[in-house]
């Protein structure tokens, strides 16, 4: 499943760059994120709960920053599974930041998500809609928190 998008944040690029490295801040913006912690220099662990109608799943994810060019570009790999290994999730994402004038930053992102196991059988079309609405929720929360200066933890 391929997802992509673009949004602007009313904050300078360096501030946004710091924000996308702040697990505590991100944890509060990712819908359904129950915990997040840094486990290595470029490695994070997160527990995320997602729900579609009566179907819910809790994934434990390991998120690695695999490439970065501060403060412009970031490549992230996420890999995770449900507790019982009932489904597996992998995602490769790329994030690019650019100045958008007036101290604003444009964020362009793309993500390829793969889901297998019990949830992989579930309608992909619907998963994509759900992922899009979760992304939109994230963007709203992230922009608000960064714009109100809630960056350094």
């Amino acid at each position, binding site marked *: 499943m391929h997802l992509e998008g673009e949004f602007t944040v009313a904050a300078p690029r360096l501030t946004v760059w710091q924000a996308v490295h702040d697990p505590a801040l991100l944890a509060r913006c990712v819908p359904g994120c129950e915990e997040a912690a840094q486990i290595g220099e470029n490695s994070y662990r997160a527990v995320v709960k997602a729900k*579609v*109608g*009566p*179907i819910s799943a809790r994934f434990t994810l390991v998120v690695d920053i695999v490439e970065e060019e501060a403060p412009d570009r970031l490549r992230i790999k996420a890999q995770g599974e449900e507790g019982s290994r*009932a489904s597996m999730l992998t995602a490769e994402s790329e994030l690019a930041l650019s100045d958008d004038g007036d101290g604003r930053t444009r964020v362009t992102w793309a993500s390829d998500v793969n889901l297998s196991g*019990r*949830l992989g*059988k*579930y*309608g*992909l*079309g*619907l998963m*994509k*809609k*759900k992922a899009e*609405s979760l992304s939109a929720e994230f963007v709203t929360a992230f922009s608000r928190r960064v714009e109100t200066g809630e960056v350094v933890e």
Partner: protein
Amino acid sequence: MSFVLSPRTVEEAVGLLAELPDALPMSGGASLVAMKNARLIEASHFVSLAGIASLHGITATDTGLRIGGMTRHAQLAACDLLTGDLSMLRQAAGQIANRVVRNMGTIGGAVGNADPAADYLAVLACGDAHVELTGTEGSRLVAMTDYVTDWYETLREPGEIVTAIHLPAARPVPSVYRKLCRVPGDYATASVACASDGDGVRVAVGACGHGPIRSREAEAALRGNLRDPVAIAAFGAALADLADPVDDVRGTSEFRLRLIPRMVAAAISDLEGKR
């Protein structure tokens, strides 16, 4: 392992759901059992609504009809009260899945589950239906046109159940339900419910977004112009503009967007033929 509980009253059922946060209501089990077998859902308990007398049956009220949540699709497909502008509900019920599912599945379960492709949603939105939701605090009515808020998300709070569907009394004007599916009994690729309304129509499109699509503004613009193909095309285009279909095995999003104006025009012409 899930335990099945069999309350005898609605109060008991919603009490159990409030007490047991990992419990789910169960009506016919048509979808619930399939989802459980596919390991898509986990629940500590299923609270079966089948033994609650007040959820069964279709009754006339001061304003129209009350259809109990436990009413099976097969009963609605054979219901003599569903005439005129309510006949589309009867038509939709008869096109759900197959005989086995129609004998098992219920309107309360279908509306509770709110599958975007469920046949009832478009019909109930078109028919100005209200959903009766009951929780430990009592019952409330929400308009079907407001009920679905996102993909599989509704105004129903956790712990509330769909106890009935309310419809205005049948009027003696034609209505039609058109369902496009790959094979008979499949979920709809797209569907249209259409009912005559004076010199206009009420129309709702199904399976092309998270909930049924209806536009009262577009209906008002079409009023008096039911023989004008340009006005009908504009009406269909307006509904397609409100759609947000998925890409799935039944068709691409693009395909569904193209279907909408055609199916809407066909449904309106069906009605003109029935006058």
